[in-house]
């Protein structure tokens, strides 16, 4: 297709992406370099009939509002926001490392810092949910492949539900069940014989619930893709493996799994991107006391009751995107190599 025709066809789509994805990125960079104005303080003399007169410091609301209107971005702060306590916290970490009681102690204290708390949960969530969700999907696909054909339609219908459902709705549905007054929460109390047991009150149990929830919504996607892949497994390879004496497990290990590897990389990529942005479950499970994610930190800054923290949200956003690019880098390199190899021929 000639350049000119290409340009006209891609124009609307490219325009939308430049205006609402690329420009906002610029806007985030700018915002992260500024910080909100402090409140304007004035000295006021207040006198009471018996106490005499004292100088008091008050917030000058009108002047504060005027300043914020004049310079909505705030004042220039350079890279200050990136290194402050709510983000990379370089000074705090230096202090922690200086007077530490061993590695466990310093790790525990670093975990108290909001950015690292969010980072740790996000990474753990991605690292646990991505492989386990794929594994669950793979087992379901193998099992569905074996059951009588009449059952397959309804099974696929029900299996799609956790994936298709709005994440916030899915997490609320599960949260209401595992809540200490819900049916699963009750069951858990009965099993452990501990009537005060509550998932929300326990940090590790909250993490576990969020992970299980993540697997629950991630498994169907892997299942559908792997199930489709299973239909294309070459039958003659399977037969010759059987003639060579491979048992059931060996056939799965040496014929089926290698056949599914290209699909698995695709699924892993998509799941990695989706799990990394985990936000709704934390809101749905009301779990921010024991688990916050990077997305949740940004959401929280933008939701703040007294004034939205644009600078803080923007700095976290950029750190998140930087981390994401590092995570995606192997994929990008591989795609580039594939492309160069193809165009070399």
């Amino acid at each position, binding site marked *: 297709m000639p350049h000119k025709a290409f340009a006209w066809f891609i124009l*609307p789509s490219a325009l939308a992406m430049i205006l*609402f994805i690329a420009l*906002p990125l610029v806007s985030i960079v700018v915002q992260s370099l500024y910080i909100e104005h402090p409140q304007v303080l004035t000295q006021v003399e207040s006198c009471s009939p018996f106490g005499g007169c004292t100088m008091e410091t008050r917030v000058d609301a009108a002047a504060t509002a005027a300043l914020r209107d004049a310079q909505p971005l705030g004042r220039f702060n350079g890279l200050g926001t990136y290194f402050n306590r709510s983000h990379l916290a370089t000074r705090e970490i230096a202090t922690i490392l200086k007077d530490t009681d061993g590695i466990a102690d310093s790790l525990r204290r670093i975990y108290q810092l909001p950015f690292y708390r969010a980072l740790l949960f996000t990474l753990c969530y991605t690292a646990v949910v991505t492989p386990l969700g794929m594994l669950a999907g793979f087992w*379901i696909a193998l099992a569905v492949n074996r*059951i009588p054909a009449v059952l397959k339609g309804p099974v696929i219908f029900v299996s799609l539900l956790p994936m298709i459902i709005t994440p916030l709705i899915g997490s*609320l549905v599960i949260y*209401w*069940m595992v809540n200490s007054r819900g049916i699963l929460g009750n069951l858990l109390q009965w099993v452990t014989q501990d009537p005060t047991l509550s998932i929300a009150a326990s940090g590790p149990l909250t993490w576990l619930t969020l992970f299980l929830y993540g697997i629950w919504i991630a498994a169907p996607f892997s299942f559908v893709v792997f199930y489709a892949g299973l239909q294309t497994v070459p039958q003659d390879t399977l037969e010759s493996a059987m003639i060579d004496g491979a048992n*059931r497990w060996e056939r799965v290990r040496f014929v089926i799994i290698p056949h599914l590897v290209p699909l698995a990389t695709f699924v892993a990529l998509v799941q990695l991107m989706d799990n*990394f942005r985990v936000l709704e479950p934390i809101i749905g499970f009301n779990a921010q006391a024991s688990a916050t994610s990077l997305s949740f930190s940004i959401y929280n800054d933008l939701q703040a009751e007294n004034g939205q923290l644009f600078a803080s949200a923007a700095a976290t956003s950029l750190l998140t995107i930087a981390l994401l690019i590092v995570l995606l880098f192997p994929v990008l390199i591989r795609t580039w190599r594939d492309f160069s190899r193809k165009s070399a021929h």
Partner: protein
Amino acid sequence: MTSSPARPNYTLTLIATAFVLFWMVVAGFPFLWTTWGSFKVEADFFSRADWSNALSGVNTIRQTGDAFTMDGYKGAWILNDFWRAGLNTMLVTVVVTVLSLVLGTLGGYALARSGYRYAFWILILALVFRAMPHITLVSGYLVPFFQLNIWGTLPTAIIVLVAINQPFTLWMLHSFFLSIPKDLDESAMVDGCTRFQAFREVIVPVMWPGIITTGLFSFLLAYNDFAVTAMLLRQENQTMIPKIASFLGSIESEGNVMFAVSSVVSATVPLFILVMFFQRQIVGGLTAGAVKG
């Protein structure tokens, strides 16, 4: 005669069937339970005393005289204006789907038919955009939108959702267009069509299955969005999902959690219907991306 290379092994089939049944309970039961519970009062669905109250509806009978009550639905839809959120959702999802498809088919067609290197780079850039959490972009919208005074309105949210959906839509439609032979549009152009006429009259008609599948996913992205609609819409323009989130803050404290339960059930109904009618297209779309992607 059997086409399967494996000898029938009934134990394994039995284990597989049991496992699948277990998975079906895990996947489906939460929705069944919540739907059932939405017709009860709070004291039954969130029972401190005995979970079986939710089945028998002891308190529901005592409070309302019947084992099933519509109180939760009345409270949400009528008293708390959930109907308005429903209308907003309908408007947003329909417009976002149509616009995404119009922009996406044009762009996807160009990307599939261009052999130049820049087409590849646009696709890679789209992949990076697709990976970015939506909330990171939202933090970039707020200040400019406040300045331009376009924050809070439905058209703003619609355009943002269309743009955010573009990377995914482009990838999917691009791979569908690749499966249509080039000869088709080239012969149309030999017969005297312009490029755009060939696209409109020849390619789009054979692309309908791909367009419908992509449209389903655009619909889901718009319908399921939380980050954009929660942050960019003012209260009276809220769609269903942010409305439910705002129920959690205000209603749970007043003891009217059943409003949230019934609105959650209401918001799942369209998705249920969608899966019921378009199961094959959804499965096809998921696998198309994987096999070709």
